[in-house]
C-alpha cells in the first residue's frame, strides 16, 4: 500500500515538495512493558523466597540467641539438648544427623556409581529404557513411604540379624540405610549424566589401544567425569542431611548423644518435625529453637549445594 502510494507521489511534481514522513521510531507498547514487568516479578519471586528464608530464620534465630542464657557458642558446642532445663547444645542433634547421613552415603555412593557405570558403559539401549524408569520411580516414592519401609521392614530385619537386645526399635542405622536407598537414584542419575557427557572419542581411543571395557571405564571415563561424580556425592550428602520423614519415623524421638548407630537418637530435622507437630505457642524457646536449627540446616545444605556447583563448574573437563 505505502509503496504504491510512494510511487504515485513520485510521479506528481508536488510530491517532492511535501514528502510523506514515516515514523521509524520504536513504538511504545504499554501491554508489552506490563507483561515484561510481570515476568520479571515472577523471576524475582525466587530471590524473594531466598531472602524470606534467610530473614525469617535469621530473625527468629536472633530472638533465640537473644535469650541471655543461650549463646551461639554454647549452642554449637553443647552436648546436651534439654529445653526443659534450658540446655540448648545442638551437638546431639547434629551428631545423629551426621551418623544417619554417613550411613546413607556409604550405601548410596558405591551402589550409585556402579549403577551409573552399568547404565552408561554396559547396558544396551533396551535395558536402559527398562532400568531408567525403575530408578525414576524409586526417586519419586514419597519419603514418608520410605519412613514406613524403614520402620516395618528394615528395623525388624536389623533386629533379626543383630539381636533385638542390641538394636533399639527406633535406631539410626535403619533410617540411614533406607535413606541410602532413597538417595541412590539421585546419585546414580547425576553420575550417569556425568559419565555420558564424556565424549565417545575418548573411549574409542582407549579401545583402540587394546584396553578392556573395565580399563576404559575406570581409567579413562571415570577420571574425566570425576567432577560430576563429586558434585553428585555432595548433593547426595545435602539431601541426606535435610531428609526429614525417614528419620522422624525410624530414628527415634528424643535427643541422644551417642555414636552407636543401633541406638535411638533424634536428628535436627526430626526435632523440628516433632516440635512443630505438637501444639506450638509462638515466642517460646521451643518455637524459636526450631528456627535456630532450621537456620543451621539451611546454611549447611545451601553451602553444600554451592560447593557442589562450584566443583562441577571449576573442575569440569571441557572437550572439543
Amino acid at each position: 500500500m505505502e509503496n504504491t502510494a510512494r510511487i504515485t507521489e513520485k510521479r506528481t511534481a508536488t510530491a517532492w515538495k511535501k514528502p510523506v514522513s514515516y515514523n521509524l521510531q520504536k513504538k511504545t507498547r504499554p501491554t508489552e512493558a506490563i507483561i515484561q514487568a510481570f515476568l520479571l516479578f515472577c523471576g524475582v519471586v525466587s530471590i524473594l523466597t531466598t531472602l524470606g528464608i534467610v530473614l525469617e530464620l535469621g530473625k527468629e534465630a536472633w530472638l533465640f540467641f537473644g535469650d541471655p542464657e543461650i549463646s551461639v557458642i554454647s549452642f554449637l558446642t553443647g552436648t546436651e539438648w534439654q529445653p526443659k532445663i534450658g540446655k540448648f547444645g545442638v551437638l546431639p542433634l547434629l551428631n545423629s544427623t551426621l551418623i544417619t547421613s554417613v550411613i546413607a552415603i556409604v550405601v548410596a555412593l558405591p551402589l550409585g556409581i556402579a549403577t551409573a557405570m552399568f547404565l552408561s558403559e554396559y547396558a544396551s539401549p533396551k535395558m536402559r529404557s527398562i532400568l531408567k524408569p525403575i530408578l525414576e520411580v524409586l526417586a519419586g516414592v514419597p519419603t514418608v513411604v520410605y519412613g514406613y519401609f524403614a520402620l516395618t521392614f528394615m528395623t525388624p530385619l536389623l533386629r533379626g540379624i543383630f539381636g533385638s537386645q542390641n538394636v533399639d526399635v527406633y535406631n539410626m542405622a535403619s533410617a540411614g540405610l533406607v535413606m541410602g536407598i532413597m538417595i541412590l537414584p539421585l546419585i546414580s542419575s547425576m553420575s550417569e549424566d556425568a559419565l555420558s557427557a564424556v565424549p565417545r572419542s575418548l573411549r574409542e581411543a582407549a579401545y583402540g589401544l587394546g584396553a578392556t571395557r573395565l580399563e576404559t571405564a575406570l581409567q579413562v571415563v571415570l577420571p574425566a567425569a570425576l567432577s560430576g561424580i563429586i558434585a553428585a556425592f555432595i548433593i547426595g550428602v545435602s539431601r541426606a542431611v535435610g531428609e526429614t520423614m525417614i528419620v522422624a519415623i525410624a530414628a527415634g524421638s528424643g535427643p541422644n548423644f551417642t555414636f552407636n548407630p543401633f541406638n535411638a537418637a533424634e536428628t535436627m530435622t526430626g526435632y523440628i518435625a516433632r516440635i512443630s507437630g505438637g501444639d506450638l505457642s509462638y515466642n517460646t524457646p521451643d518455637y524459636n529453637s526450631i528456627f535456630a536449627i532450621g537456620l543451621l540446616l539451611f546454611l549447611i545444605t545451601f553451602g553444600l549445594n554451592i560447593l557442589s556447583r562450584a566443583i562441577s563448574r571449576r573442575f569440569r573437563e571441557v572437550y572439543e
Partner: protein
Amino acid sequence: MNPMKPKTFGSNQEMQDAEKNFLYRRHQRARLAQSVFQLTTLLAVIFLATLLVTVVNKSMGYVVVENKVNPATLSDRPLSELNNTELAQILRENLRKNRVRTLERTGFLEDQSQSTLVQLVEAEIIQPEVVESYNLFPSLINRSKIKADAAVSYPNAKVEFRYWLNGVFLINSMASQPELAGVRSALLGSLQLILITILTAFPIGVGAAIYLEEYASHKSRINRLIQTNIDNLAGVPSIVYGILGLALFVRALQPFTSGALFGVDGQNGRTILSAGLTMALLILPILIINAQEAIRSVPDSLRQASYGLGATRWQTIWHHVLPGAMPGILTGTILAISRAIGETAPLIVVGASTFITSDPTGPFSSFTALPIQIYNWTTRPQPAFQHIAAAAILVLLIALLSLNAVAILLRNRFAKRV
C-alpha cells in the same frame, strides 16, 4: 601405572605364554567387574520390589474380629435388611440417653439414611475390634494354623480375610478405631491443597521461565543471580520451606491465610491456603527449571520467522514459543506436582492436623492430607494402624503412578510431533 610394562623373558615361548596369561587375567577382571556392576543395578530393582512387596504385604491379610455385642442378639434379621425405625429403636434401646441425645443433635435418628444408621449401630453398639491381624504372606502360608489359633484364643471371634484398602476406607474419615478409619478427609484435603499449589505455582513458574529464557540477557548480573538462586533453591530441604511457611504464611500473613480479611471466621493461619502456598514455593524452582528446558527446546527458527513477520516479542512468545513448549511444560509441572503430593515435612511444620473427621470446607479450613495421615498412622503403636497406613500408601502410590503415566504419555506425544 602402565600394565603393559615389558618384562624380560627367557624364551619366545615363555613370553607368549606370559602374555596370554596376562591378557586372560585382564579379561577375567573385566568380566567380573561387569557382573558386579550388573548386580548392583539389579539391587536397585530389588529395593523397589521389596518396598512395594512390604506395603502390599501389610495391606491385606487375615484378621480376627471380635464383636463387643453379637449382632444376632440385636435383631433376628441382618442389619442391612432393617428399616430406619427398627434401626433407630435398636440404637435407643442399647445406648445411654446422653449418647442418643448427642447423636440426635443434628436431627432425629429416624430421619437419617439407612446406611448411616447401620454405620452408627456398628460403631456404637457392635463395636467390632480387630484383636489380631496378619500380613498377606503368613495368611497365605499358615491359613489353617491361624484359624486354629484364633479359635483357641478368641472363641467368639470371627476370622476373615481383609483388604485394608477397600471402599469403606476411601469413604470414611479419620476415626480413633483403625477398623473404621478412612482417608476421605485426607484425600479431599490433599486435592484442595494441590489445587491451590497449581494455581499459584504454575503461572509464576512459567512466567519466571519465560523471563529467564526469552527476555533476560544471560550476561546481566541480576539475571545470573536469579538463575543461580533458583538452582540453589531446588536443593533446600523441604522442612526449611515448612519453617518459612510457618513464619510467613501462618504467622505474618495470618489475617489473609486465616480468612479474617475476607470475613471468614478462621481461628488461625494453619489452613489449606497456607499449606498450598508453602507447597507452591517448594515446587517453584523445580517447575521453573523444567519449564526453562521446555522453552529452550523450541527451535530458534520459529522465533525468527515470527519476528520477521513483524510480531512483537510477546506475540512471538504467546503464539509460537508457548504452544511449542507446552507439552514439555505440562510434563514438568506434573512431575513437580507429584513431588508436592507426597511431601510431608512442610505440612507438619505448617500445622496440618492429624485428627480431622470432617471434610475441608474451603481454603480457610484446617485440614489433613494423605501423607500426614500416613505419617500419623505409621507412628502409632497398634498393629492395625500399620495396616491402614499401608492401605493409605497404596492410595498415594496409585495416585502418583497415574500422574506419572500422564506425564509419560504427554512426553511421548510431544516426541512424536517433533
